[in-house]
Protein backbone atom coordinates (compact mmCIF):
# COMPACT_ATOMS: atom_id res chain seq x y z
CA UNK A 1 0.00 0.00 0.00
CA UNK A 2 2.86 2.26 0.67
CA UNK A 3 4.24 1.70 -2.77
CA UNK A 4 2.26 4.25 -4.65
CA UNK A 5 3.01 7.37 -2.63
CA UNK A 6 6.57 6.21 -2.14
CA UNK A 7 6.95 5.85 -5.76
CA UNK A 8 5.43 9.23 -6.33
CA UNK A 9 7.66 10.93 -3.82
CA UNK A 10 10.65 9.10 -5.13
CA UNK A 11 9.88 10.12 -8.61
CA UNK A 12 9.33 13.66 -7.55
CA UNK A 13 12.62 13.72 -5.76
CA UNK A 14 14.44 12.42 -8.71
CA UNK A 15 12.72 14.97 -10.89
CA UNK A 16 13.74 17.74 -8.55
CA UNK A 17 17.32 16.66 -8.48
CA UNK A 18 17.56 16.39 -12.20
CA UNK A 19 15.85 19.70 -12.65
CA UNK A 20 18.33 21.27 -10.30
CA UNK A 21 21.18 19.66 -12.13
CA UNK A 22 19.88 20.81 -15.42
CA UNK A 23 19.44 24.29 -14.16
CA UNK A 24 23.00 24.45 -12.93
CA UNK A 25 24.28 23.12 -16.20
CA UNK A 26 22.28 25.63 -18.09
CA UNK A 27 23.61 28.40 -15.99
CA UNK A 28 27.15 27.25 -16.51
CA UNK A 29 26.66 26.98 -20.22
CA UNK A 30 25.26 30.44 -20.37
CA UNK A 31 28.24 31.83 -18.51
CA UNK A 32 30.69 30.03 -20.77
CA UNK A 33 28.95 31.33 -23.81
CA UNK A 34 29.22 34.85 -22.59
CA UNK A 35 32.89 34.37 -21.94
CA UNK A 36 33.42 32.93 -25.37
CA UNK A 37 31.56 35.76 -26.97
CA UNK A 38 33.77 38.24 -25.25
CA UNK A 39 36.78 36.28 -26.36
CA UNK A 40 35.58 36.24 -29.94
CA UNK A 41 35.00 39.94 -29.86
CA UNK A 42 38.48 40.51 -28.55
CA UNK A 43 39.93 38.27 -31.22
CA UNK A 44 38.01 40.02 -33.92
CA UNK A 45 39.26 43.34 -32.72
CA UNK A 46 42.76 41.99 -32.76
CA UNK A 47 42.27 40.64 -36.28
CA UNK A 48 40.97 43.96 -37.47
CA UNK A 49 44.01 45.62 -36.01
CA UNK A 50 46.33 43.13 -37.67
CA UNK A 51 44.65 43.55 -41.03
CA UNK A 52 44.93 47.30 -40.75
CA UNK A 53 48.55 46.98 -39.76
CA UNK A 54 49.21 44.66 -42.70
CA UNK A 55 47.53 47.00 -45.15
CA UNK A 56 49.51 49.91 -43.78
CA UNK A 57 52.67 47.87 -44.09
CA UNK A 58 51.93 47.03 -47.72
CA UNK A 59 51.11 50.64 -48.45
CA UNK A 60 54.36 51.66 -46.83
CA UNK A 61 56.20 49.08 -48.92
CA UNK A 62 54.69 50.38 -52.11
CA UNK A 63 54.97 54.05 -51.34
CA UNK A 64 58.31 54.22 -49.59
CA UNK A 65 60.44 51.14 -49.51
CA UNK A 66 60.24 49.98 -53.14
CA UNK A 67 61.07 53.40 -54.64
CA UNK A 68 63.88 53.80 -52.16
CA UNK A 69 65.26 50.37 -53.00
CA UNK A 70 65.10 51.17 -56.72
CA UNK A 71 66.83 54.49 -56.16
CA UNK A 72 69.46 52.89 -54.06
CA UNK A 73 70.65 50.89 -57.05
CA UNK A 74 71.84 54.04 -58.79
CA UNK A 75 72.45 56.29 -55.81
CA UNK A 76 74.10 54.33 -53.10
CA UNK A 77 73.62 57.06 -50.53
CA UNK A 78 69.81 56.50 -50.45
CA UNK A 79 68.73 54.35 -47.45
CA UNK A 80 65.76 52.00 -47.66
CA UNK A 81 63.36 52.56 -44.69
CA UNK A 82 62.42 49.55 -42.54
CA UNK A 83 58.89 48.28 -41.83
CA UNK A 84 56.43 50.61 -40.07
CA UNK A 85 56.08 48.65 -36.85
CA UNK A 86 59.09 46.90 -35.51
CA UNK A 87 56.96 43.88 -34.52
CA UNK A 88 56.47 43.04 -38.20
CA UNK A 89 60.17 42.41 -38.65
CA UNK A 90 59.98 39.67 -36.07
CA UNK A 91 56.90 38.10 -37.59
CA UNK A 92 57.13 35.94 -40.75
CA UNK A 93 55.80 38.92 -42.69
CA UNK A 94 59.06 40.84 -42.30
CA UNK A 95 61.30 38.42 -44.26
CA UNK A 96 58.51 37.98 -46.81
CA UNK A 97 58.47 41.69 -47.49
CA UNK A 98 62.27 41.70 -47.71
CA UNK A 99 61.98 38.99 -50.34
CA UNK A 100 59.66 41.22 -52.34
CA UNK A 101 62.32 43.93 -52.30
CA UNK A 102 65.08 41.53 -53.26
CA UNK A 103 63.13 40.08 -56.14
CA UNK A 104 62.46 43.54 -57.42
CA UNK A 105 66.12 44.49 -57.16
CA UNK A 106 67.23 41.48 -59.20
CA UNK A 107 64.70 42.10 -61.92
CA UNK A 108 65.49 45.80 -62.01
CA UNK A 109 69.20 45.12 -62.38
CA UNK A 110 68.56 42.73 -65.24
CA UNK A 111 66.35 45.28 -66.96
CA UNK A 112 68.94 47.96 -66.53
CA UNK A 113 71.65 45.86 -68.11
CA UNK A 114 69.34 45.00 -70.99
CA UNK A 115 68.41 48.60 -71.62
CA UNK A 116 72.04 49.71 -71.33
CA UNK A 117 73.11 47.02 -73.77
CA UNK A 118 70.50 48.25 -76.23
CA UNK A 119 71.66 51.83 -75.80
CA UNK A 120 75.27 50.75 -76.26
CA UNK A 121 74.42 48.84 -79.41
CA UNK A 122 72.67 51.90 -80.81
CA UNK A 123 75.57 54.15 -79.97
CA UNK A 124 78.09 51.67 -81.31
CA UNK A 125 76.37 51.63 -84.65
CA UNK A 126 76.18 55.40 -84.82
CA UNK A 127 79.76 56.05 -83.75
CA UNK A 128 81.13 53.47 -86.16
CA UNK A 129 79.51 55.32 -89.04
CA UNK A 130 80.80 58.65 -87.75
CA UNK A 131 84.28 57.26 -87.28
CA UNK A 132 84.41 55.89 -90.80
CA UNK A 133 83.22 59.23 -92.17
CA UNK A 134 85.84 61.12 -90.18
CA UNK A 135 88.59 58.84 -91.51
CA UNK A 136 87.45 59.62 -95.02
CA UNK A 137 87.53 63.31 -94.17
CA UNK A 138 91.03 62.88 -92.77
CA UNK A 139 92.19 61.29 -96.01
CA UNK A 140 90.76 64.17 -97.98
CA UNK A 141 92.38 66.77 -95.72
CA UNK A 142 95.78 65.10 -95.86
CA UNK A 143 95.53 64.81 -99.62
CA UNK A 144 94.93 68.55 -99.81
CA UNK A 145 97.86 69.21 -97.47
CA UNK A 146 100.14 67.33 -99.81
CA UNK A 147 98.77 69.03 -102.87
CA UNK A 148 98.75 72.71 -101.96
CA UNK A 149 101.53 74.87 -100.54
CA UNK A 150 99.65 78.10 -99.99
CA UNK A 151 100.26 79.06 -96.34
CA UNK A 152 96.77 80.41 -95.76
CA UNK A 153 95.17 77.29 -97.16
CA UNK A 154 97.58 75.10 -95.24
CA UNK A 155 96.78 76.93 -92.02
CA UNK A 156 93.11 76.13 -92.54
CA UNK A 157 93.88 72.55 -93.46
CA UNK A 158 96.01 72.10 -90.35
CA UNK A 159 93.22 73.47 -88.18
CA UNK A 160 90.62 71.28 -89.84
CA UNK A 161 92.86 68.25 -89.53
CA UNK A 162 93.30 68.92 -85.83
CA UNK A 163 89.58 69.42 -85.29
CA UNK A 164 88.98 66.22 -87.19
CA UNK A 165 91.45 64.34 -85.00
CA UNK A 166 89.63 65.53 -81.90
CA UNK A 167 86.24 64.51 -83.24
CA UNK A 168 87.69 61.17 -84.24
CA UNK A 169 89.00 60.67 -80.75
CA UNK A 170 85.60 61.35 -79.23
CA UNK A 171 83.76 59.07 -81.63
CA UNK A 172 86.34 56.35 -81.18
CA UNK A 173 86.25 56.54 -77.39
CA UNK A 174 82.46 56.40 -77.35
CA UNK A 175 82.58 53.35 -79.60
CA UNK A 176 85.18 51.66 -77.42
CA UNK A 177 83.17 52.33 -74.27
CA UNK A 178 80.19 50.69 -75.96
CA UNK A 179 82.27 47.61 -76.56
CA UNK A 180 83.21 48.21 -80.19
CA UNK A 181 86.52 47.42 -81.82
CA UNK A 182 88.97 50.36 -81.97
CA UNK A 183 87.95 50.76 -85.59
CA UNK A 184 91.33 50.96 -87.30
CA UNK A 185 93.88 48.32 -88.16
CA UNK A 186 97.38 49.72 -88.06
CA UNK A 187 100.62 48.10 -88.96
CA UNK A 188 103.46 47.57 -86.53
CA UNK A 189 104.60 51.03 -85.43
CA UNK A 190 107.17 52.70 -83.25
CA UNK A 191 105.87 53.10 -79.71
CA UNK A 192 106.89 56.75 -79.72
CA UNK A 193 104.76 57.24 -82.84
CA UNK A 194 101.72 55.83 -81.05
CA UNK A 195 102.32 58.16 -78.11
CA UNK A 196 102.89 61.16 -80.39
CA UNK A 197 99.79 60.21 -82.36
CA UNK A 198 97.83 60.20 -79.11
CA UNK A 199 99.25 63.61 -78.28
CA UNK A 200 98.11 65.02 -81.62
CA UNK A 201 94.49 64.17 -80.85
CA UNK A 202 94.21 66.73 -78.06
CA UNK A 203 93.42 70.41 -78.07
CA UNK A 204 96.27 71.26 -75.71
CA UNK A 205 98.99 69.25 -77.41
CA UNK A 206 101.40 72.19 -77.16
CA UNK A 207 101.66 71.64 -73.43
CA UNK A 208 102.83 68.06 -73.70
CA UNK A 209 106.55 67.28 -73.43
CA UNK A 210 107.54 63.78 -74.45
CA UNK A 211 110.83 62.33 -73.25
CA UNK A 212 111.70 59.18 -75.06
CA UNK A 213 114.16 56.98 -73.18
CA UNK A 214 113.47 53.87 -75.24
CA UNK A 215 115.95 52.04 -77.40
CA UNK A 216 115.54 53.19 -80.98
CA UNK A 217 113.22 50.84 -82.82
CA UNK A 218 111.05 49.84 -79.86
CA UNK A 219 107.72 49.15 -81.52
CA UNK A 220 104.24 47.85 -80.83
CA UNK A 221 102.69 44.84 -82.49
CA UNK A 222 100.04 45.91 -84.95
CA UNK A 223 96.95 45.21 -82.86
CA UNK A 224 98.29 47.13 -79.87
CA UNK A 225 99.12 50.36 -81.74
CA UNK A 226 95.70 51.99 -81.79
CA UNK A 227 94.74 50.93 -78.24
CA UNK A 228 97.96 52.41 -76.87
CA UNK A 229 97.36 55.63 -78.81
CA UNK A 230 93.82 55.83 -77.42
CA UNK A 231 94.88 55.15 -73.83
CA UNK A 232 97.71 57.68 -74.01
CA UNK A 233 95.37 60.26 -75.51
CA UNK A 234 92.84 59.75 -72.72
CA UNK A 235 95.46 59.85 -69.96
CA UNK A 236 96.92 63.01 -71.48
CA UNK A 237 93.47 64.52 -71.82
CA UNK A 238 92.82 63.93 -68.13
CA UNK A 239 96.19 65.41 -67.26
CA UNK A 240 95.63 68.49 -69.44
CA UNK A 241 92.11 68.96 -68.12
CA UNK A 242 93.11 68.79 -64.49
CA UNK A 243 96.16 71.04 -64.57
CA UNK A 244 96.65 74.76 -65.08
CA UNK A 245 96.92 75.88 -68.72
CA UNK A 246 100.40 77.31 -68.14
CA UNK A 247 101.88 74.06 -66.87
CA UNK A 248 103.41 71.27 -68.89
CA UNK A 249 102.32 67.67 -68.93
CA UNK A 250 105.38 65.45 -68.95
CA UNK A 251 105.44 62.07 -70.64
CA UNK A 252 108.28 59.64 -70.12
CA UNK A 253 108.79 56.46 -72.10
CA UNK A 254 110.97 53.97 -70.30
CA UNK A 255 111.95 50.36 -70.41
CA UNK A 256 110.94 48.30 -67.39
CA UNK A 257 111.60 44.70 -66.58
CA UNK A 258 108.62 43.20 -68.41
CA UNK A 259 108.09 45.74 -71.12
CA UNK A 260 107.71 49.48 -71.45
CA UNK A 261 106.10 52.09 -69.22
CA UNK A 262 104.51 55.31 -70.42
CA UNK A 263 104.34 57.70 -67.48
CA UNK A 264 102.12 60.79 -67.65
CA UNK A 265 102.67 63.41 -64.94
CA UNK A 266 100.67 66.55 -64.53
CA UNK A 267 101.18 69.44 -62.15
CA UNK A 268 97.52 69.87 -61.29
CA UNK A 269 95.64 69.54 -58.05
CA UNK A 270 95.61 65.79 -57.96
CA UNK A 271 92.73 63.57 -56.92
CA UNK A 272 91.17 62.85 -53.57
CA UNK A 273 91.38 59.37 -52.15
CA UNK A 274 87.82 58.54 -53.30
CA UNK A 275 88.33 59.91 -56.81
CA UNK A 276 91.53 57.97 -57.08
CA UNK A 277 89.81 54.77 -55.96
CA UNK A 278 86.98 55.29 -58.44
CA UNK A 279 89.40 56.05 -61.26
CA UNK A 280 91.50 53.04 -60.42
CA UNK A 281 88.37 50.85 -60.40
CA UNK A 282 87.31 52.19 -63.81
CA UNK A 283 90.68 51.79 -65.52
CA UNK A 284 91.11 48.29 -64.11
CA UNK A 285 88.21 47.27 -66.35
CA UNK A 286 87.11 44.51 -64.00
CA UNK A 287 83.46 45.61 -63.84
CA UNK A 288 81.10 45.80 -66.79
CA UNK A 289 80.48 49.35 -67.94
CA UNK A 290 77.00 50.88 -67.82
CA UNK A 291 76.40 54.08 -69.74
CA UNK A 292 74.03 55.21 -67.01
CA UNK A 293 76.87 55.16 -64.54
CA UNK A 294 79.15 57.46 -66.51
CA UNK A 295 77.27 60.61 -65.57
CA UNK A 296 75.86 63.37 -67.71
CA UNK A 297 77.70 64.40 -69.80
CA UNK A 298 79.24 60.94 -69.71
CA UNK A 299 82.89 60.80 -68.70
CA UNK A 300 84.08 58.16 -71.06
CA UNK A 301 87.86 58.42 -70.95
CA UNK A 302 88.55 56.20 -67.98
CA UNK A 303 85.82 53.76 -68.98
CA UNK A 304 87.37 53.43 -72.44
CA UNK A 305 90.76 52.79 -70.86
CA UNK A 306 89.12 50.11 -68.72
CA UNK A 307 87.66 48.39 -71.77
CA UNK A 308 91.00 48.45 -73.58
CA UNK A 309 93.11 47.28 -70.65
CA UNK A 310 90.80 44.32 -70.26
CA UNK A 311 90.85 43.43 -73.95
CA UNK A 312 94.53 43.95 -74.64
CA UNK A 313 96.23 42.96 -71.44
CA UNK A 314 97.59 46.43 -70.86
CA UNK A 315 97.98 47.83 -67.37
CA UNK A 316 97.08 51.34 -66.23
CA UNK A 317 97.81 52.60 -62.76
CA UNK A 318 96.53 55.86 -61.31
CA UNK A 319 97.17 55.10 -57.69
CA UNK A 320 100.30 57.14 -57.05
CA UNK A 321 100.49 60.93 -56.83
CA UNK A 322 102.86 62.74 -59.14
CA UNK A 323 106.02 64.37 -57.81
CA UNK A 324 104.81 67.45 -59.71
CA UNK A 325 101.81 67.59 -57.39
CA UNK A 326 99.17 66.23 -59.72
CA UNK A 327 98.36 62.74 -60.82
CA UNK A 328 100.82 60.20 -62.14
CA UNK A 329 99.31 57.82 -64.64
CA UNK A 330 101.37 54.85 -65.73
CA UNK A 331 100.56 52.72 -68.75
CA UNK A 332 102.42 49.43 -68.76
CA UNK A 333 102.88 47.62 -72.06
CA UNK A 334 104.02 44.06 -71.56
CA UNK A 335 106.78 42.68 -73.72
CA UNK A 336 104.41 40.34 -75.55
CA UNK A 337 102.87 43.44 -77.15
CA UNK A 338 106.25 44.84 -78.13
CA UNK A 339 108.27 44.22 -81.24
CA UNK A 340 111.15 45.85 -83.06
CA UNK A 341 111.37 47.93 -86.19
CA UNK A 342 114.67 48.76 -87.81
CA UNK A 343 114.86 52.53 -87.24
CA UNK A 344 117.18 52.91 -90.22
CA UNK A 345 114.77 51.28 -92.58
CA UNK A 346 111.61 52.77 -91.15
CA UNK A 347 112.37 55.75 -88.94
CA UNK A 348 109.72 57.09 -86.57
CA UNK A 349 107.71 60.13 -87.60
CA UNK A 350 109.65 63.36 -87.94
CA UNK A 351 107.66 64.97 -85.13
CA UNK A 352 108.23 62.10 -82.70
CA UNK A 353 110.64 62.79 -79.86
CA UNK A 354 114.18 61.51 -80.30
CA UNK A 355 115.45 58.75 -78.12
CA UNK A 356 117.78 59.94 -75.39
CA UNK A 357 119.03 56.42 -75.08
CA UNK A 358 122.82 55.97 -75.13
CA UNK A 359 122.39 53.25 -77.76
CA UNK A 360 121.18 55.79 -80.25
CA UNK A 361 123.99 58.19 -79.48
CA UNK A 362 126.34 55.31 -79.56
CA UNK A 363 125.32 54.37 -83.07
CA UNK A 364 125.86 57.82 -84.32
CA UNK A 365 129.11 58.26 -82.48
CA UNK A 366 130.48 54.98 -83.67
CA UNK A 367 129.51 55.84 -87.17
CA UNK A 368 131.21 59.16 -86.80
CA UNK A 369 134.39 57.63 -85.44
CA UNK A 370 134.33 54.62 -87.68
CA UNK A 371 133.79 56.58 -90.84
CA UNK A 372 137.51 57.19 -91.09
CA UNK A 373 138.66 53.60 -90.92
CA UNK A 374 135.84 51.09 -90.98
CA UNK A 375 132.57 52.97 -91.36
CA UNK A 376 130.65 49.76 -91.66
CA UNK A 377 129.83 49.10 -88.04
CA UNK A 378 126.32 47.84 -87.98
CA UNK A 379 123.89 50.17 -86.24
CA UNK A 380 122.44 48.79 -83.07
CA UNK A 381 125.47 46.67 -82.30
CA UNK A 382 126.67 46.75 -78.69
CA UNK A 383 124.31 49.48 -77.61
CA UNK A 384 125.70 49.76 -74.12
CA UNK A 385 129.38 49.22 -74.78
CA UNK A 386 130.35 52.86 -74.71
CA UNK A 387 130.16 54.76 -71.48
CA UNK A 388 128.08 57.72 -72.52
CA UNK A 389 126.40 59.37 -69.59
CA UNK A 390 122.64 59.29 -69.34
CA UNK A 391 122.57 62.97 -68.49
CA UNK A 392 122.99 63.95 -72.13
CA UNK A 393 119.80 65.14 -73.61
CA UNK A 394 118.53 64.73 -77.10
CA UNK A 395 119.71 68.10 -78.31
CA UNK A 396 123.32 67.55 -77.37
CA UNK A 397 122.98 64.17 -78.96
CA UNK A 398 122.06 65.60 -82.30
CA UNK A 399 124.61 68.32 -81.89
CA UNK A 400 127.33 65.74 -81.72
CA UNK A 401 125.84 63.56 -84.41
CA UNK A 402 125.24 66.54 -86.55
CA UNK A 403 128.79 66.83 -87.69
CA UNK A 404 129.03 63.26 -88.81
CA UNK A 405 130.76 63.13 -92.18
CA UNK A 406 128.34 62.52 -94.98
CA UNK A 407 130.07 59.42 -96.31
CA UNK A 408 129.07 57.15 -93.44
CA UNK A 409 126.98 54.03 -93.58
CA UNK A 410 123.54 53.28 -92.17
CA UNK A 411 121.21 56.22 -91.82
CA UNK A 412 122.86 58.58 -94.32
CA UNK A 413 122.81 55.87 -96.96
CA UNK A 414 119.12 55.41 -96.57
CA UNK A 415 118.64 59.12 -96.78
CA UNK A 416 120.66 59.44 -99.87
CA UNK A 417 118.78 56.71 -101.63
CA UNK A 418 115.88 58.79 -102.92
CA UNK A 419 118.13 61.51 -104.19
CA UNK A 420 118.74 60.06 -107.66
CA UNK A 421 114.99 59.96 -108.20
CA UNK A 422 114.82 63.66 -107.49
CA UNK A 423 117.72 64.78 -109.70
CA UNK A 424 115.47 66.48 -112.24
CA UNK A 425 114.78 68.98 -109.50
CA UNK A 426 118.47 69.73 -108.90
CA UNK A 427 120.47 69.48 -112.10
CA UNK A 428 123.77 69.25 -110.25
CA UNK A 429 125.39 67.26 -113.03
CA UNK A 430 124.86 68.57 -116.54
CA UNK A 431 123.47 66.17 -119.05
CA UNK A 432 125.81 65.19 -121.89
CA UNK A 433 125.23 67.63 -124.65
CA UNK A 434 124.62 66.21 -128.12
CA UNK A 435 127.69 66.33 -130.37
CA UNK A 436 126.30 68.83 -132.82
CA UNK A 437 125.53 71.32 -130.06
CA UNK A 438 128.82 71.37 -128.26
CA UNK A 439 130.14 74.88 -127.61
CA UNK A 440 133.36 74.11 -129.49
CA UNK A 441 131.34 73.30 -132.55
CA UNK A 442 129.35 76.47 -132.23
CA UNK A 443 132.53 78.49 -131.82
CA UNK A 444 134.06 76.79 -134.79
CA UNK A 445 131.00 77.47 -136.89
CA UNK A 446 131.01 81.10 -135.91
CA UNK A 447 134.74 81.32 -136.50
CA UNK A 448 134.31 79.80 -139.93
CA UNK A 449 131.54 82.21 -140.66
CA UNK A 450 133.65 85.12 -139.63
CA UNK A 451 136.59 83.88 -141.65
CA UNK A 452 134.28 83.23 -144.61
CA UNK A 453 132.77 86.68 -144.53
CA UNK A 454 136.20 88.23 -144.09
CA UNK A 455 137.45 86.26 -147.08
CA UNK A 456 134.43 87.24 -149.13
CA UNK A 457 134.91 90.87 -148.20
CA UNK A 458 138.57 90.79 -149.04
CA UNK A 459 137.65 89.05 -152.33
CA UNK A 460 135.12 91.75 -153.05
CA UNK A 461 137.72 94.35 -152.17
CA UNK A 462 140.64 92.72 -153.89
CA UNK A 463 138.66 90.86 -156.56
CA UNK A 464 140.31 87.41 -156.14
CA UNK A 465 139.01 84.58 -154.06
CA UNK A 466 142.22 82.95 -153.03
CA UNK A 467 142.89 79.47 -151.88
CA UNK A 468 144.42 81.09 -148.78
CA UNK A 469 141.16 82.51 -147.71
CA UNK A 470 139.48 79.14 -148.03
CA UNK A 471 142.35 77.61 -146.15
CA UNK A 472 141.88 80.19 -143.43
CA UNK A 473 138.25 79.11 -143.09
CA UNK A 474 139.16 75.51 -142.51
CA UNK A 475 142.06 76.56 -140.27
CA UNK A 476 139.71 78.67 -138.22
CA UNK A 477 137.57 75.62 -137.66
CA UNK A 478 140.54 73.56 -136.64
CA UNK A 479 142.00 76.27 -134.49
CA UNK A 480 138.88 77.01 -132.52
CA UNK A 481 138.28 73.31 -132.14
CA UNK A 482 141.74 72.99 -130.72
CA UNK A 483 141.96 76.02 -128.47
CA UNK A 484 138.50 75.69 -127.00
CA UNK A 485 139.46 72.56 -125.16
CA UNK A 486 141.39 74.79 -122.78
CA UNK A 487 138.51 77.11 -122.12
CA UNK A 488 135.33 76.37 -120.30
CA UNK A 489 132.14 75.80 -122.19
CA UNK A 490 130.60 79.11 -121.46
CA UNK A 491 133.66 80.92 -122.83
CA UNK A 492 133.33 78.89 -125.98
CA UNK A 493 129.76 79.83 -126.62
CA UNK A 494 130.27 83.45 -125.76
CA UNK A 495 132.94 83.96 -128.36
Amino acid at each position, binding site marked *: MIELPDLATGGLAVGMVSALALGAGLLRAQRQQARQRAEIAALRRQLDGAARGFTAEIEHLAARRIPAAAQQMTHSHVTVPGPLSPRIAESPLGPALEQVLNGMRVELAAQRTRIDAAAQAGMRGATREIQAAL*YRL*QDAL*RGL*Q*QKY*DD*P*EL*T*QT*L*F*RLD*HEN*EQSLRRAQVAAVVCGAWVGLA*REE*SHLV*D*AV*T*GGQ*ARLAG*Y*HRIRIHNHLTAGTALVSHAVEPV*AIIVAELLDNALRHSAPDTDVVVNLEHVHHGVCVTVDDAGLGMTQEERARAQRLVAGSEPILLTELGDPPRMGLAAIGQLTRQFDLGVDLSSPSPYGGVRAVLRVDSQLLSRIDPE*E*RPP*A*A*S*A*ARSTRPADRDDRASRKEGSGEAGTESPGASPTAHGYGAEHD*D*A*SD*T*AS*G*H*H*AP*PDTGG*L*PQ*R*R*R*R*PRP*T*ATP*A*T*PAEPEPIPED*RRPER*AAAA*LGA*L*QAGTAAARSAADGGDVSIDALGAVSDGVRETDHTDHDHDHEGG*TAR
Partner: protein
Amino acid sequence: MTGRRGGRPLVPAYLSTGGVARPSRPQLERLSVLRSTGAPAPTGLPAAQLALLDALDDGSLTVVEAAALLRLPVSAVRVLAGELIDRDLAASRAPIPTADRFDPDLLKRVADGLRALKHPR
Protein backbone atom coordinates in the same frame (compact mmCIF):
# COMPACT_ATOMS: atom_id res chain seq x y z
CA MET B 1 109.46 56.17 -103.31
CA THR B 2 110.59 52.79 -102.13
CA GLY B 3 110.29 51.82 -98.51
CA ARG B 4 107.46 54.19 -97.88
CA ARG B 5 105.12 53.06 -95.19
CA GLY B 6 101.65 52.17 -96.21
CA GLY B 7 98.60 52.89 -94.14
CA ARG B 8 97.37 55.93 -92.35
CA PRO B 9 100.12 57.95 -90.68
CA LEU B 10 99.82 58.01 -86.90
CA VAL B 11 101.27 61.46 -86.47
CA PRO B 12 99.53 64.27 -88.37
CA ALA B 13 101.57 66.92 -90.15
CA TYR B 14 100.41 69.86 -88.03
CA LEU B 15 102.23 68.42 -85.05
CA SER B 16 105.59 68.92 -86.77
CA THR B 17 105.24 72.69 -86.80
CA GLY B 18 103.01 73.04 -83.77
CA GLY B 19 100.11 74.02 -86.01
CA VAL B 20 101.98 76.84 -87.75
CA ALA B 21 101.57 76.91 -91.52
CA ARG B 22 102.90 80.35 -92.43
CA PRO B 23 106.64 80.14 -93.09
CA SER B 24 108.83 82.89 -91.69
CA ARG B 25 110.62 82.90 -95.05
CA PRO B 26 107.94 83.12 -97.71
CA GLN B 27 110.57 83.10 -100.45
CA LEU B 28 111.23 79.40 -99.88
CA GLU B 29 109.91 77.46 -102.81
CA ARG B 30 109.52 73.80 -103.54
CA LEU B 31 112.87 73.73 -105.32
CA SER B 32 114.78 76.04 -102.98
CA VAL B 33 117.94 74.27 -101.93
CA LEU B 34 118.52 73.84 -98.21
CA ARG B 35 121.81 73.06 -96.58
CA SER B 36 123.00 72.84 -93.03
CA THR B 37 125.35 75.54 -91.74
CA GLY B 38 126.98 73.04 -89.42
CA ALA B 39 126.23 75.07 -86.32
CA PRO B 40 125.48 72.84 -83.31
CA ALA B 41 121.78 72.41 -82.67
CA PRO B 42 120.67 74.14 -79.47
CA THR B 43 118.89 72.20 -76.74
CA GLY B 44 115.14 72.06 -76.89
CA LEU B 45 114.93 72.20 -80.66
CA PRO B 46 111.59 70.66 -81.74
CA ALA B 47 111.86 67.08 -82.95
CA ALA B 48 110.77 67.85 -86.49
CA GLN B 49 113.39 70.60 -86.90
CA LEU B 50 116.02 68.18 -85.64
CA ALA B 51 114.84 65.62 -88.14
CA LEU B 52 115.16 68.16 -90.95
CA LEU B 53 118.65 69.13 -89.77
CA ASP B 54 119.63 65.49 -89.75
CA ALA B 55 118.37 65.07 -93.26
CA LEU B 56 120.55 67.99 -94.32
CA ASP B 57 123.58 66.38 -92.71
CA ASP B 58 124.43 64.55 -95.89
CA GLY B 59 124.38 67.58 -98.10
CA SER B 60 121.96 69.92 -99.74
CA LEU B 61 118.36 68.99 -100.38
CA THR B 62 115.56 70.82 -102.03
CA VAL B 63 112.50 71.57 -99.96
CA VAL B 64 110.44 69.02 -101.81
CA GLU B 65 113.07 66.31 -101.34
CA ALA B 66 113.27 67.00 -97.63
CA ALA B 67 109.48 66.79 -97.47
CA ALA B 68 109.54 63.38 -99.11
CA LEU B 69 112.23 62.15 -96.73
CA LEU B 70 110.46 63.36 -93.62
CA ARG B 71 107.08 62.22 -94.95
CA LEU B 72 105.66 65.69 -94.36
CA PRO B 73 103.79 68.04 -96.68
CA VAL B 74 105.95 70.64 -98.43
CA SER B 75 104.15 73.41 -96.58
CA ALA B 76 105.26 72.00 -93.23
CA VAL B 77 108.87 71.67 -94.39
CA ARG B 78 108.84 75.29 -95.53
CA VAL B 79 107.88 76.31 -92.00
CA LEU B 80 110.53 74.08 -90.44
CA ALA B 81 113.21 75.30 -92.86
CA GLY B 82 112.24 78.90 -92.19
CA GLU B 83 112.71 78.36 -88.48
CA LEU B 84 116.07 76.66 -88.98
CA ILE B 85 117.25 79.52 -91.21
CA ASP B 86 116.10 82.03 -88.59
CA ARG B 87 118.25 80.23 -86.07
CA ASP B 88 121.23 80.15 -88.46
CA LEU B 89 121.23 76.38 -88.43
CA ALA B 90 120.46 76.08 -92.10
CA ALA B 91 120.83 78.19 -95.19
CA SER B 92 118.78 78.31 -98.35
CA ARG B 93 119.55 79.12 -101.96
CA ALA B 94 117.10 80.13 -104.61
CA PRO B 95 116.13 77.32 -106.95
CA ILE B 96 118.55 76.66 -109.77
CA PRO B 97 116.78 77.69 -112.96
CA THR B 98 116.82 75.26 -115.81
CA ALA B 99 119.41 76.48 -118.31
CA ASP B 100 118.04 77.69 -121.64
CA ARG B 101 119.92 76.91 -124.81
CA PHE B 102 120.82 79.86 -126.90
CA ASP B 103 119.27 80.07 -130.28
CA PRO B 104 122.15 79.74 -132.82
CA ASP B 105 120.29 81.89 -135.36
CA LEU B 106 120.05 84.68 -132.86
CA LEU B 107 123.75 84.35 -132.07
CA LYS B 108 124.60 84.52 -135.74
CA ARG B 109 122.53 87.61 -136.16
CA VAL B 110 124.15 89.22 -133.14
CA ALA B 111 127.58 88.37 -134.52
CA ASP B 112 126.63 89.83 -137.88
CA GLY B 113 125.42 92.94 -136.21
CA LEU B 114 128.62 93.33 -134.27
CA ARG B 115 130.70 92.78 -137.32
CA ALA B 116 128.64 95.28 -139.22
CA LEU B 117 129.42 97.76 -136.47
CA LYS B 118 133.10 96.88 -136.65
CA HIS B 119 133.40 97.23 -140.40
CA PRO B 120 131.02 99.98 -141.38
CA ARG B 121 130.58 100.26 -145.08
